């Protein structure tokens, strides 16, 4: 646990953990509202948003890309609603129509535009480059108090930290109305809670979390973290606060364990190179969910 750890692993682990937390928090509510696959849809449409932002600005600077991705996510949500209502198509199919079309458009745009000079490709979008987010300026644990070294932290860290903070604040502030609207929408409306607006706000926060996390870790973790930790937590308890707490624990555990397994697991097995950290984090979250499905105390339905 020396200087090498601080330089190579500390920041990716922090980013992975923050991304997991940012996605898991809204994921809890999406899961209970039967919108679990919205995370899937959002993470697919981030690609066209980023490519469009690149085509407009001509650079891979982060702010326009984040804006483009967030806008694409909102456009996708609006289109899904439009197709569902205007076409009278069931939500799952409406979602499938919209996000596959937008993803295809993103891939086509990417292939048509000259992105050879910049680091922008489909593989990167899918599984990110968590391992490359190293802290070059660091020299050891002492760098944590060194302003010069701290200034050299990868910018992704600050962005994902901000997004995580946003989801935490959103969840904490709107906890009661969110919980009521999630479990009993009719009652929530009778209490004067604007459920439509609240649902839109939840989707927006989820989109922001997905986009910020996507920036650092790729879309595959985003989908996994939206669903797996909340789903595993759902099998542990019947109480919402406890479910959220469990899910956060699972998310952090998946991120840390997944990163360590990806980075050091192959070494223990005698191989030389690390495997994809993003993929491993998703795999670990799946293993946790599988365990919860097998032994979680509340895994069965009430009406057996």
């Amino acid at each position, binding site marked *: 646990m020396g200087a090498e750890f601080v330089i190579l692993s500390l920041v990716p682990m922090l980013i992975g953990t923050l991304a997991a937390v940012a996605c898991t928090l809204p994921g809890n509510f999406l899961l209970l509202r039967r919108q679990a696959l919205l995370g899937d849809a959002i993470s697919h449409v981030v690609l066209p948003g980023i490519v469009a932002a690149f085509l407009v600005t001509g650079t891979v600077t982060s702010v326009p890309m984040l804006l483009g991705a967030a806008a694409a996510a909102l456009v996708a949500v609006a289109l899904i609603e439009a197709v569902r209502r205007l076409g009278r198509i069931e939500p799952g199919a409406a979602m499938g129509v919209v996000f596959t079309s937008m993803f295809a458009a993103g*891939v086509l745009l990417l292939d048509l535009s000259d992105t050879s000079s910049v680091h922008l490709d489909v593989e990167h979008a899918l599984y990110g480059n968590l391992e490359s987010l190293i802290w070059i300026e660091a020299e050891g644990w002492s760098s944590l108090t060194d302003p010069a070294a701290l200034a050299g932290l990868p910018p992704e860290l600050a962005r994902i930290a901000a997004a995580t903070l946003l989801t935490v604040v959103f969840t904490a502030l709107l906890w009661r109305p969110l919980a009521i609207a999630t479990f009993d929408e009719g009652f929530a409306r009778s209490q004067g809670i604007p459920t439509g607006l609240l649902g839109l706000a939840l989707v927006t926060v989820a989109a922001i979390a997905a986009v910020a996390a996507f920036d650092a870790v790729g879309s595959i973790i985003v989908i996994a973290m939206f669903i797996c930790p909340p789903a595993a937590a759902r099998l542990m308890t019947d109480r919402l606060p406890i479910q959220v707490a469990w899910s956060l624990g699972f998310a952090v555990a998946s991120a840390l364990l997944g990163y360590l397994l990806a980075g050091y697991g192959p070494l223990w097995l005698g*191989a030389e190179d690390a495997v994809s950290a993003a993929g491993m984090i998703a795999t670990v979250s799946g293993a946790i969910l599988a365990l919860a499905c097998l032994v979680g105390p509340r895994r069965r339905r009430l009406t057996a």
Partner: protein
Amino acid sequence: MLFDALTLQLGYNATLVAIGAALLGLSAGATGTYLFLRKRALLSDAISHATLPGIGLAFIAMTALGLDGRALAGLLLGSAVSAGLGLLAVHWIATRTRLPEDAAIGAVLSVFFGLGIVILTVIQTLDTGRQAGLEGFLLGATAGMLRSDALLIAGGGALTLALVLLLRRPMTAAAFDPGFAAAAGQNLKATDLALMALALAVTLIGLKVVGLILIVALLIIPPAAARFWTDRSGAMAALAAVLGGLSGYVGAALSASAPALPTGPLVVLTAAALFTASLLAAPRRGLLAAGLRHLRTRRAVHLRQGLLALAQGQPIYERYTLRLLNRAGLARPDGVATEEGRAEAAKALLDEARWALARSDPDFEPSAALYDGLRPIETVLTPDELAEIDARLAPRGVPA
């Protein structure tokens, strides 16, 4: 160039790809229809993502055995096994735990895909040197399509299509009324299993052409587009197959018409364009038709209310109403009724009075339920009934 591509003049590979993509679209559209009707369209997303670990493991296994790691048949076998496991996992989570099916789908697709990525990175570090190309299964890679690949796709597509044709009745019954199907002695589990197996087969066929991320589009978009045009499931499946085949063919031709155009995304975008056209232009369910219907109803309501106002000597303030009456020759621009307008107005008032009486009398209840403020009562009641109503109306002094 595009014309050349559409008429298969662009050489051997382009022709192979276009025919393969068209066959893929045909079978995907037909199969997707029953997934769509069973409301399980997104299950195909879990199936397709769950193929990735199998592709990677099959590659490792084949190279370990000293075979060509990129042999399509072996890769497809591997992906079939892992996608089958994924399906089982979705089914198991959705039935044995309290988690809903959408959560199970999301969990399986992300975890299997993550595992697949891990295996792909393992392969990249292997010393076989022939691993390049497995990424092609993510988004499809038609450039290097071989004759044997095309034959595999053609054979698989024909087989799936035949099976859909064979199984269409039980699958329709399971989609529309599972309770009745079960009571009639049909094995619902087997039907659903067959449907999943068909979706899995389409996914495997499509891996090479559009890739595992976008194949779900071919299973969902053509049926969703076909739904706009018909209310009959058989016609919908046929139309979805045609739309899917068209998407595959046109998309592949488009991608062949210029260098560096990817086939998979273009096939999907062609399907999306067909969907948008259907959403807008389909008769009855389409947006244009709905808009026209709305305008027609609005016009009829304005005319009717205008006539009633004329009949009762009330002034008309609504400009649209006045314009409609004027254009129909029923009123002058200042709102005074013409000769013809007075006659029409009297008729409308009589109709309204007849309806009011019919609706207040329980004897006429079935017919009175058809009242919508626009329908003339003569189209609902028989002449005898009308005569009876008029007889009752006359003493109250309403002009007949």
